């Protein structure tokens, strides 16, 4: 018999029941909750006289809606304010630990899980948010769910699920210097397309992946959903264990080491068989920028805006025409010549400490180009505090970046941080959909170092362009 993939191991360990002719009932080890997709679920519980089965496996934070102004400023938008209050009230009523705006542990839901050490290998993790795939970097099966499913998990701590297929995504060899985790995942999404991962759980493998820090692996897993995949996974190794050691959610001393030994089993067996396999040569990777309105529309920073004629598929050709029109770009324009109005360094893709450090190295001693608004929005209060201890805030502020309070911010523009009509951004987030960052806004996805260099030169640029 062939060995098991990492996905199959986690799946098999969480089957509560697999009734004939019905989906498998899967147990959920950790349910993360935020203010936007939960209120109707809590109301559903009340309406039906149900409770939360396992408040001790449920953790909530405010992130999508919070303004990034100083915490002392009240939330101006009454609808947002109400939603934030509702989260707190619901959590209080149902005995769920919650981190409201300004709380020392508050931050983007996919940043706080790992940094608090509550995201652990071998777990099943869900959240009413598609980027839950981020947690897969720890060898956990983590995926996004809808509001009725949020209610379902609150009530039963389980979910009926159809088993996904598996896809091995190997990034073979070493990535060239200057290629970040974001570039790796942009290349993968570009290769697979926005639907290429549909119905699959991706397992990222290969030297270029294992070489990444945990932060980098999270960046890669985060964007699995952009390829249409259900989840992303990276096998457990020493880095996983070292990252978690000493975090609040894990035991100490001997107990931790025993647990860590168990975690080492969360790797695919050597002879495991995947439903699909793709291989990407790391040596061919470069820094990337998206040019269109879906995250698979990727081009090298050194390249030019593609022409619709380059696409054989008529659908793709049409889509690229629409994208170019929306983005206000002409085929053949060198990417480096495109000026930006706004630079956003933030989001659950790239707002961890390592991302901010990388951007700060580029920003140190430089000035943001005139007319460019550049924001740095740390992913959590813990990230913000750590960055301040390291003096990163001063580097950014001295260079003319804004240093803001944590939250999702301009990743989705639900709070006041939005692009104006026709404004162009270089953004470290994960979605460049029409209007995602504000009505009529034009988003280009990039890595933190490209974002920082772009802020300084006012057009798309690499760190070498800044120093050279």
């Amino acid at each position: 018999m062939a060995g098991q993939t990492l996905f199959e191991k986690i799946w098999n360990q969480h089957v509560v029941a697999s009734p004939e002719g019905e989906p498998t009932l899967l147990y959920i080890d950790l349910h993360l909750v935020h203010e936007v997709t939960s209120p109707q679920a809590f109301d559903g519980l009340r309406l039906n006289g149900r409770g939360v089965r396992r408040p001790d496996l449920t953790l909530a934070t405010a992130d999508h809606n919070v303004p990034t102004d100083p915490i002392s400023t009240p939330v101006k938008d009454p609808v947002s304010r109400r939603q934030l209050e509702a989260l707190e009230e619901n959590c209080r009523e149902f005995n769920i630990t919650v981190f409201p705006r300004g709380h020392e542990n508050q931050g983007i839901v996919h940043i706080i899980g790992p940094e608090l050490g509550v995201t652990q290998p071998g777990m099943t993790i869900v959240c009413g948010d598609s980027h839950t795939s981020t947690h897969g970097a720890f060898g956990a099966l983590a995926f996004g769910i809808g509001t009725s499913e949020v209610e379902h998990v609150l009530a039963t701590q389980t979910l009926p699920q159809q088993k996904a297929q598996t896809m091995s995504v190997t990034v073979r060899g070493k990535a060239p210097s200057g290629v970040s985790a974001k570039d790796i995942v942009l290349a993968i999404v570009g290769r697979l397309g926005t639907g290429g991962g549909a119905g699959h759980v991706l397992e990222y493998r290969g030297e270029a992946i294992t070489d990444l820090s945990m932060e980098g692996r999270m960046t890669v897993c985060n964007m699995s959903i952009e390829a249409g995949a259900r989840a992303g996974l990276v096998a457990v190794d020493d880095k996983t264990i070292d990252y978690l050691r000493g975090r609040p959610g894990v035991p100490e001393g001997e107990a931790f080491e025993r647990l860590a030994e168990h975690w080492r089993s969360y790797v695919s067996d050597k002879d495991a068989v995947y439903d699909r396999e793709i291989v990407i040569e790391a040596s061919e990777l470069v820094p990337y920028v998206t040019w269109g309105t879906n995250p698979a529309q990727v081009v090298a920073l050194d390249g030019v805006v593609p022409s619709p004629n380059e696409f054989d598929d008529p659908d793709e050709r049409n889509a690229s025409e629409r994208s170019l029109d929306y983005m206000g770009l002409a085929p053949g324009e060198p990417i480096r010549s495109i000026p930006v109005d706004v630079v956003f360094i933030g989001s659950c893709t790239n707002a961890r400490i390592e991302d901010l450090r990388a951007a700060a190295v580029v920003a140190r001693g430089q000035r943001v180009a005139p007319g460019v608004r550049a924001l740095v929005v740390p992913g959590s209060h813990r990230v913000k505090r750590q960055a301040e201890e390291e003096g990163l805030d001063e580097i950014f502020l001295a260079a003319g970046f804004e240093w803001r309070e944590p939250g999702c911010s301009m990743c989705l523009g639900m709070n006041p941080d939005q692009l104006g009509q026709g404004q162009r951004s270089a953004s470290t987030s994960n979605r460049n959909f029409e209007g995602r960052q504000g009505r009529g806004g034009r988003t280009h996805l990039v890595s933190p170092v490209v974002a920082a260099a772009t802020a300084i030169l006012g057009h798309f640029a690499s760190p070498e362009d800044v120093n050279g």
Partner: protein
Amino acid sequence: MKPVRVIEGRAVPLERSDVDTDQIIPSDWLKRVERTGFGRGLFSEWRDDPSFVLNDQRYVGANILVAGPRFGTGSSREHAVWALMDYGFAAVVAPSFGDIFRNNSSKQGLVIVQLAQEDVDELTRLVKEDSTRLVIVDVDQMQVEVPQVDWHRSFALDPMIRERLLYGWDDIGLTMRREASITSFEERSTAPTLEGVFDGAGHVIAR
């Protein structure tokens, strides 16, 4: 979803046909984050009119709505069902219904009673004559009755919908049938919990 076997209460005659879901709950209400509280928006275009039947003191507290044909057509918004239930209705009696509305109702446990036009007219007459009359909707027997005058009519229910209503099965309800399996899984599970990690205010407990 709560099981519904028998609904006993009073009925309010709407005496309108073609009440679409936009009329049941106008679109401004869809911006709300809550799923409860839609009762305030129920028929909100009509509620300002003092002569509207829901403003008639005699029908306050009625839990069965008697309406004209093609009730609940139009937009698929489930908010219409939420609004009716939140207001206090447990059943709607009418000669015909919008399909999606009927389906949405079955998910939420709102009982749809379809009767012939003349039976609906008669029921309307009975509750207009005396608003205090007890009306019974029996899901198990698939009967609607006004015992005071010995009036009863049968109605049809899809067998699966009847089961779901009787047992209160929604997706969560269906999962609850596996309660024993869930509990035994939990007893075996060694997965960590958040117990002892955070205090009541969400601060990390020092060790």
